[in-house]
């Protein structure tokens, strides 16, 4: 004979288990939405033709001097670029929201100078060419397979890159799990103001 308490205990216990099972399945499905499932190939969301079209658009815009704000990892950097990249000045640099540079200062480091639109185009061209020519390492010295996912977005009007990121997927031959690592630190253009030259 089952008592009322026993019935309630069974009901709550079973319901809890089923809810937990559904939560596990739902979280896997949601995670797969955020991070695409494994495919046994490199992936890229643009072709060299897309790159050429965007670059042409940028050249046709004739923008020579501009102020660009870039977010990359923990940095928010605003650069003033003039003369097509001949002069690069750091207007503001925030690290984790804390200011490092607040007044104009010449950008000496390669990393900062790589954040001009021309250099961003060079980065995109290099990665697109590497993907298309399959010129990327396919395995590491531990025998793990490597795959790359390139994601690039261009500004629809001026054509400059607004987002560049590349991830590396690493998996063992068993393919039980694939780990994704950052291969190219994501660069996102948060703000772009044309100074002169249009």
């Amino acid at each position, binding site marked *: 004979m089952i008592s009322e308490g*026993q019935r309630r205990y*069974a009901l709550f216990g079973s319901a809890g288990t089923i809810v937990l*099972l559904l*939560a596990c399945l739902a979280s896997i499905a949601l*995670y797969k939405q955020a991070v695409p499932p494994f495919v046994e190939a490199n992936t890229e969301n643009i072709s060299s033709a897309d790159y050429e079209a965007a670059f042409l658009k940028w050249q046709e815009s004739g923008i020579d001097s501009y102020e660009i704000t870039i977010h990359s990892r923990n940095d928010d950097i605003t650069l003033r670029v003039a003369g097509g990249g001949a002069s690069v000045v750091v207007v503001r640099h925030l690290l984790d929201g804390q200011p490092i540079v607040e007044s104009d200062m010449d950008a000496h480091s390669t990393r900062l100078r790589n954040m001009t639109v021309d250099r961003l185009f060079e980065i995109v061209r290099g990665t697109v060419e590497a993907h298309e020519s399959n010129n990327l390492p396919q395995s590491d010295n531990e025998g793990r397979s490597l795959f790359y996912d390139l994601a690039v977005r261009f500004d629809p009007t001026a054509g400059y890159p607004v987002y560049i990121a590349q991830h590396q997927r690493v998996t063992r031959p068993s393919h039980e799990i694939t780990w994704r690592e950052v291969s190219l630190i994501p660069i996102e253009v948060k703000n772009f103001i044309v100074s002169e030259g249009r």
Partner: protein
Amino acid sequence: MQLNQQDEYARRYQSPSGCVFWFTRLGWAFATFIAFTLGDVLGKAVEALLAPETAGAGVRRAMSIAQPVDAGASLNLLAAIPGGLVAGVVLAVCQCLVLLPFMKRSGILEWAGATIVGRAAAWVAIYVISKQTVGLVVDRSMGGLVFLLALLVGTGVIAGLAVGLPQSLVLYRRVQNPAQWVAANLSGPVVIGMLVTLIYYIQGENVVRDFNTGFAAVITAISTSIALTDMFSHATSQAEWTQSFRSRKEQAKAPQQETVLGSSLYRPPQPPPSQSRRDDAK
């Protein structure tokens, strides 16, 4: 105060003696370990028989904290359910053999049913979750690691609940705290979930996948054997074993004569002095 007296009474008369206590504990741990590992092998063999494409050396494996799960695209429940039932039968038979001296036939049958259903449910739940993880790409970051840990530990909790909950229902009216049994069943799969997460993070694949069930079986066997003997000591009046323990202990005590007031606190009635003198003279 009353509770303390009850505990003392239970300790003395409703719990097994030292020898029985340790024999039960060791027997249970051994039976559970053997049952989990043997059940895993037989369950997998049944699956392979019903779905040969899921077995073999060349078959890719999905992420799993227990039995091996193939990474094929199809969800073959018609093979997984019989596999789980076979694993459940093995576990039920082994555990019932240890419980035979403590429960009546109806209790043993209840336990067997609960174990078969629970183990099969755990088997199928692990199978379904593992199948869903095929192709999963996890970020090698704190967020990704936390997600993986939560997923595998969550799977362990489901597997532990699936077995522990039906069994605790059998114990429900027999012991004071049936939830303790569920907690004891969680330990093995939860620990193995943590271990497998760590191995995936460090090695990139589960290099101990063939020993998943064995590791979980060792932990579950130990934790449930401790819980079982503890529950024997904290049983309700409806537990069959309290009768046998009490009668055994009471038989072992020297028989006492009935006192005037019916209490052992008083000495047995002495014969009147005149009668005792007469007895002496004889």
